[in-house]
């Protein structure tokens, strides 16, 4: 059992879910921030996972293991700004309010961000379970020939 690559797969999965969690947490943390007329406030971000390069055709078991070794079986990701207009809020007393008395808040969907958090945690846990199963299997392999 090549546990190096088995661990690497699960580690990559955990990594991407942690990043997803951090992005959602950053969005939530900035949900209440305001900006003035220039609208130079917080840009809502999102994580975009890129499908791994596993083909849509079947390959042999050996070819699959080769791709795993080259790190091609795990997803890549990038964090990008989500397009969307800032929300206009009327607040005449605010020091940054424009001439009509408006300030701008980032357009963050709290419910959607909470969903992202919950999903990321569950997938992270599944990756931990996979890692732990790989670890058990690797440890069992050490028991070959040890009595009984």
């Amino acid at each position, binding site marked *: 059992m090549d546990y190096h690559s088995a661990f690497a797969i*699960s580690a990559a999965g955990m990594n991407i879910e942690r990043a997803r969690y951090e992005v959602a947490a950053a969005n939530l943390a900035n949900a209440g921030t305001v900006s003035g007329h220039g609208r130079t406030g917080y840009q809502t971000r999102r994580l975009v996972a890129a499908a791994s390069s596993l083909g849509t055709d079947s390959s042999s078991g050996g070819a699959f293991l080769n791709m795993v070794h080259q790190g091609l079986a795990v*997803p890549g990701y990038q964090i990008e700004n989500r397009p969307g207009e800032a929300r206009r809020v009327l607040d005449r007393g605010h020091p940054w309010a424009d001439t009509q008395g408006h300030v701008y808040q980032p357009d963050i969907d709290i419910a959607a961000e909470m969903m992202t958090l919950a999903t990321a945690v569950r997938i992270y846990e599944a990756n931990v379970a996979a890692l732990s199963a790989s670890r058990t299997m690797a440890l069992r392999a050490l028991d070959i020939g040890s009595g009984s």
Partner: protein
Amino acid sequence: MNIEALNLDLLRSALDLASLRQQVIATNIANAGTPGYARQRLSFSDQLQAQWPGWTGEPRHAEPTHPRVESAQVGPDLGADGLGRAVRLDEEIAEMALNSLHYQALMRALSRHFSILHSAATEGRR
């Protein structure tokens, strides 16, 4: 009695395959949050049935027809509509638990095999 050739080779192939299946499942779980990812599936039992009908039980004949990693196929799991199926975490975890248990059973079989050989080598003495 040639217990050595058949058992060891079979167990090694089966362990290799269980290890490959673990990596396929881990890959599916790692890609669970990726849109557009088609669940990968290890299709092996079809291969086994296709390859084993000629086996007569003689170790000599078993040799070229062993189930091996090279003969296993890893590919997208296509649903009834011909499209790749999305990853379902519960399904993957259940399959992983089964596979892990299978691997440990094989390991125990391997240990028993060695203890039989040990028994033979020491003429039954402990």
